[in-house]
Each structure stands twice: as structure tokens, then as C-alpha cells.
């Protein structure tokens, strides 16, 4: 059991590319070696110790590594890049690409994160107490492979295009989201407990999007299927009732879009298609 605390020494003005902050990279290293790890600040390479004060609390057994980042790390990108085990706790904000390509372990951010949270993630858990930016669990621009597994939980709001090109895994947003959650998604689940700005599930081919709050309308390329009292996500049952649509018909998709009925009276027209 090894706990390493990284405390920000100064306010950051330039973006810091810190993919090295990961339990996998720290496991075999001594404090001195960790301090010497090279990261990029703007266009310069600096040592980790130039930006963070590094301290270690060893105790207990096992080789589990926990990294605690303290301070406003909103400019620090790629925290937890390719993490496969161990945990990271960011006490404050984190920048873009938190948990990029992670395959296991857990990341907890107590503040907000930037965009591309959990991009190309394969496994593990990410929890954000604050808000997340755009492209939660998405793939890189141009690619057709987004998040492949694992879970992302955001207590606050998320931006646009949550789960873009998602191919598996679960994303749960307790707050609201911007436009187009689940765009291009193939599989997996996006559960939005708050409102959605609209166009949910555009070009989706499979998977589930569940909206418990309000959404202005549903894309015309979605076909109404039925009204359901409850929607299941794994073991969990979410109380509805929900209007359930399937689509996106433009892509010959078989995705399921569930929109809470009482919160969206503008979709009442669906009810006339329900067979008595």
C-alpha cells in the first residue's frame, strides 16, 4: 500500500501534459524517481517536482498505489492515462482527458473536469463530483471507437456529445447534458438523470440512452415503440413511465431512447399510437 500525494506548488498558466500521473507508472518508483519524471508544460519539458510537491505515505501491505492530487489542476491534462489498476483522487479540479484509455482502477475528482473525460476508456471507474466538459467517454476526433467499457459517473452536468462513438460501458450523468448525447453510439448505456438539450441519440446504431428530465423533442428519425413503466440498467430499475423510441432509422439503428413521460408532455402525441 503506497499513497503518493502531489500538491500543486504554483498556479499554472500553461497546459500541462501529465500522462505520467498514473499508479502504473508510480508503482515501481521511489520518491526521487517520481520527482524526476519528465512532463510537458507548454512546449517545455519539466520535472514533476517543478510543478508538484511529492510526498509519500506508505502503510499497510499489498502493492496497491493511490495517488492524491491536491490543488487546482484544471490545466493538468491526461491524469490517469492508461491506468490499469490502483486509484487516483483529485482533490479539486482536473483538466482534459482524465482517465484517457484507462483499463482498470478508479479515479475520483472532487471538483470539475475538462472535456474528453474517460475518452477511449476500456474499463475501471471514474467519478466526478462536479461538472464534466464535452465529449464524456467519446473517442478522439475522427475515430469510430469511443469508450469500450467501464463506468463514468458525473454528479454535476456534462457538456455536448456525451458518449460519442461509445461501443460499451455505462455513463451516468446526475445533472443535465448538452446536445447529442449518444451520437454514433453502438452499444452501452447513457443515463441522464437531469435534462438534455436535445437531439439525443443522433445516428446511434445500438445501445441505450435514458433521459429522466426534460428534452425539447426527439429526432424525427426515431420511431416510437411503447410506453414502459420502468427501464432496466443492469440490476437497477428506473421508475418511469418512459416513452421508448428506437433508432436512428437513418443508420438502420437499433438503439433505444427512453424519455421520461411526465416531464415531457410535448411528447404526448406518442400515446395515440399505443395499442389499446
Amino acid at each position, binding site marked *: 500500500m503506497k499513497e503518493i500525494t502531489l500538491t500543486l506548488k504554483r498556479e499554472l498558466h500553461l497546459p500541462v501534459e501529465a500522462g505520467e500521473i498514473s499508479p502504473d507508472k508510480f508503482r515501481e518508483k521511489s520518491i526521487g524517481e517520481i520527482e524526476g519524471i519528465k512532463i510537458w508544460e507548454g512546449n517545455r519539458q519539466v520535472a514533476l517536482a517543478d510543478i508538484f510537491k511529492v510526498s509519500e505515505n506508505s502503510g499497510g501491505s499489498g502493492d496497491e498505489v493511490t495517488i492524491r492530487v491536491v490543488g487546482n489542476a484544471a490545466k493538468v491534462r491526461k491524469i490517469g492515462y492508461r491506468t490499469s489498476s490502483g486509484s487516483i483522487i483529485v482533490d479539486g479540479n482536473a483538466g482534459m482527458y482524465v482517465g484517457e484509455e484507462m483499463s482498470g482502477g478508479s479515479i475520483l475528482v472532487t471538483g470539475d473536469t475538462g472535456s474528453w473525460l474517460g475518452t477511449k476508456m476500456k474499463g475501471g471507474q471514474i467519478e466526478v463530483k462536479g461538472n464534466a466538459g464535452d465529449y464524456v467517454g467519446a473517442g*478522439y*476526433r475522427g*475515430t469510430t471507437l469511443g469508450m469500450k467499457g467501464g463506468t463514468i459517473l458525473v454528479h454535476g452536468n456534462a457538456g455536448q456529445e456525451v458518449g460519442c462513438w461509445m461501443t460499451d460501458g455505462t455513463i451516468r450523468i446526475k445533472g443535465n447534458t448538452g446536445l447529442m448525447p449518444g451520437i454514433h453510439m453502438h452499444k452501452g448505456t447513457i443515463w441522464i438523470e437531469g435534462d438534455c438539450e436535445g437531439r439525443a441519440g443522433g445516428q446511434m446504431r445500438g445501445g441505450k440512452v435514458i433521459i429522466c428530465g426534460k428534452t425539447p423533442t426527439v429526432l424525427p428519425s426515431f420511431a416510437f415503440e411503447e410506453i414502459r413503466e420502468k427501464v432496466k440498467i443492469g440490476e437497477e430499475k428506473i421508475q418511469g413511465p418512459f416513452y421508448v423510441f428506437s433508432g436512428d432509422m437513418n443508420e438502420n439503428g437499433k438503439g433505444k431512447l427512453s424519455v421520461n413521460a411526465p416531464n415531457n408532455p410535448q411528447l404526448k402525441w406518442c400515446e395515440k399510437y399505443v395499442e389499446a
Partner: protein
Amino acid sequence: MTELLIRNGFVYDPLNGIEGEKADISIRDGKVAESVGAGATVIDATGMMVMPGGVDIHSHIAGSKVNAGRILRPEDHEKDVERHTPITRAGTGHSIPSTFTTGYRYARLGYTTVFEPATPLLKTRHTHDELNDTPIVDKGCFPLFGNDWHSMEYLQQGRIEECAAYIAWMLRATKGYAIKLVNPGGVEAWKRGRYLVGLEDRVPNFDITPREIVRGICKANQLLHLPHTIHVHTNDLAKIGNYQTTIDTMDSVRGLGGDNKPVIHITHVQFTGRTGSAWHNVGSGAPEIADYVNKHDHVTVDMGQIVFMDTTTMTADGGFQYMLYQLSGNKWMNFDVEVETGAGIVPYRYRRNNYVNAIQWGIGLELALLIKDPWRVYMTTDHPNGGDFTKYPKIISWLMSRKAREKSIARINSIARNKLDLPDIDREYTFSEIAVVTRAGTAKALGLKQKGHLGVGADADVAVYNLNPTKIDPSRDYRLVRKALKKAAFTVKDGRIVVKNGEIVETPMGRTYWVDSQVSEGLMGKVESEMRRTFTEYYTVQMDNYAMDDSELGRSSRVSVKAEV
């Protein structure tokens, strides 16, 4: 006066009949010399292999469609980023490297000359802008003919001489090096929503067939005395059973050359060598094509080998790219270049366990192994269509080692494995043959007399690989071959050391070759006045603004020839 001595290496210089003999290469002022003084810089190549710098005959490295491919694929660059160094610029790579990175990577492989094989006439200025930013290597480009209204009109009227004069004007205007034909007539048909099949279909609005275009342009090429033959991407590319079209195309110009000289180069034959009647029974047409090439002297070909990877396909053959989009469902682009040509781009991943891809992989290698004369088959991947050029060492190891092939064969789709002849082919290339298919043969085909060999007076483009051909057996130690060829120990360009131990140490500007074929003034005057009229009718660009000036090339190298007309 700068002098360089490459001492004690095992030299492979097939054009001068040197096969792995220990020799010193003396270099003075960028040329290979008889001897040098005692003050010369010495490269100790003891226990290493010395070859002329590589010459790539077909690699899409610059131009509007290459750049469109870069724009289409941010995810391709993301996985391959090169940081800047004090000498080199930052860049991105993978299947469509940025211009500077392209130059560096070729130099690291020991290549010093590269030709961009398809550039729309109208957009060649863009191509040259990118070539100017491609450091180290010498380069040139092949403008596209055969779907442009001008040449089709001249050929339709049977005015071969005027067509030749028009081509000469265009090559001078676009600073092109050779004539490229892509799906002759077929792209024009595709732009009208139609496919041509075989060589006898008529091009819509032009009373002409692909066969007539190929024959006509081939004759024009000879009238102009261009250094390279016509460079042809045949009709029906990637269609099932298209090997017959390839053979028909080769046969259509038989007898035009006389004295056994090549008159046609068929490029990336892998894509045009399929047998079968449906996707499930696609097979390799390589034995038939190789048989034809073995029996006829007028054809040269290049492989267009595929490598199992995620790459970006791009060609002026818009119709083919549309078909590939429909097959793959990937994102795509298609272009229409006014009255000249079209183009398309589709990202594609070649998979081992895909039956058709595995057959494709086999066709390329079968071709190279079944064509007996290495001087008429060249190694390419049709970069980036079959894979990027940094995979060349891998292909060389497949050519040199049966064991390396068997290893890959064991991993491909099993139905394809049983269908291919490849497992039964024993042939293994020698280092000398590799030197032919990667530099000597291509230089000869391109008519570059000062390239591809190390005789006195040749350009001092040399690649030194850390590989002792007397100690290793490439058939067994193919991994060592691959490793050594990936990073040249030294690459010398025009007598300057540009790569040392696989790292760039200097980035000089390479030449841009272009051909100026001088047509008689009377004929040129007549054709020019005709073109002036059609230009205002056909083009959005004025004829006076169309031609490029010599000063627009970074380091212009004019190849002057006297035309017959």
C-alpha cells in the same frame, strides 16, 4: 570541395554488376568519383551493406487529395506524433505523414528519390507546394491525363501529334515528370454516374474507348521521348475478375515499342489482379499476369503490396472509392476536378482474417515472386493505399525469406491460405535483387540515368545499412534484415550525410525533376491557340494563370528532351 569516402562496405550496385563485393565509394561534390584525397570525411562501413539511395516509383506523398486525407483523418495522426528536434520539424505520421515527416522517414529508410504518382493537372501547383516542403529526398510528380477533355478530344479525332503537343504543354505548365493514366475514361464516366467495364465501353459524350485512350497516350508518350513510360492504373481496379482487364491493357500497347523496350508501366497490380466471379470466390490472378509479363518485354509493373494495418486509401479513381465506401461504410470523400479528373478517399483497415484482404496480400507477393525478371517488377505499397512506406522493410523480409512468409501465411484467413499459390513458392530474393526492385530497376524505369547506381558520375545518394550480408542468412534471420533496413546506418544525399544511425543530422532541399519535351514551334503554336479557345470554354482558370513558373519549385531540375513532332 567536399569529399566523402565510404570505406570497406559490401556494395550492391546491380546496374554496374557489383554484387556484394567489398569496395570503397568515393564522393566529390555530390557525385560519385574515381577517388578522393586524404582529407575526405570517412564513413567506416566495415561489415555493412552499401546500396544506392532508394528510388520510389509510386508513393502518394503530396497534393490536394493527400492533404484532404490528412484533414479527413485526425485520428490517424493522433497515434503517431513526432516531436521537433533542433534539426527537424515536428510532425504527425501514420498512414499520411505530414510533408516534413515524409522526407525524414524516407531518408531514414535509405530512400533518396520519391515520385508522387497522381496529381490533377489543375492542382499540381498544390502538389509542388507540398513537395517543396518535403525535405531531403529528390522528387517529381506524374500529372493525370486520360480523363481530361483535351486529350480525349484530340484522341477521338485521331490527332495524336496534337495530343502529344498538348501533353508537352501541360507537363511544362505543371512541371510534371511523366504521364499518369487513372482508370482511363472511367473517371469521366463515373463523374456522370456510370461505370465503364473493360476496355471496350464507350466514354459518355466522347466517342472513345479506354483502349483507344491508352494506345493514343502511349503513342504520344513515345513521340515526346519522355524518360518514363506511361504509368497506368488500369480500368476495373479492385473489381472481381479484373486481372483480364490488366492483361488486356498490357496487350493493348504491344508492338508499339519495337526493340523490346518497356512502353507501359502498370502500377499497383495487386489491386488489379483478381480472379473470380463474386466476393466469396475472389482469387489471385498473379500467376496469369506474371506469365504475361514473363513472356512480353514491353511491360513493367509494381506490386502495390498490402500490409495488414489501418490505412487511408486515396486515388483519382472516384468510382472505385465510392465502391469501397459502400463496402466498408467508412467515412469518405469524393472530388470532381473540373474537366480533368476526379478523386476519392476512404480510410480502410486490412485484416488478416478477412478473406479478400488475405487474398490481396497474397497477390502482391505472388506477383513479385512469379515475375522472373526483377528489373520489371518493383516494390511499392502504393503508399498509403496498401500500407505506409515505412513498412517496406517488412515486405523486403517477405520477399527474402520463405520462413517470414510462412509465418504470416499461418496467420491469414484459412480459406484464402488454401486458395493461394503463395505457400508453394520457394523463391527468395537476394540482396542484389532487392537492390533492383527498390532502386536500380525503378531508377531505370524512370529514366533517371544518374540515380540507382554508384558508378562514377552518378548522384552521390547512398544508403548504408548495418547488416553484414556475408554473416547473416536473410532467409533465416529475416528479423535482423527488417531491423537493419528500418533505420539506415547512414544515408548520404548528394554527398552530404543526412542520416546517421537512423537519426536525421541534416535536412537539405531535394530537387524537383520535371520534363521539358520540346515540340516543334509550328505544332505548339497551333495547339496553343486551340487550347486558348477551349480554356475559356472549359475552365474556371485563365490559361495565362494556369502555368507554373520555374521559380515556384524549391529546387527545379529540368530534364530536357527533344520530341519527334
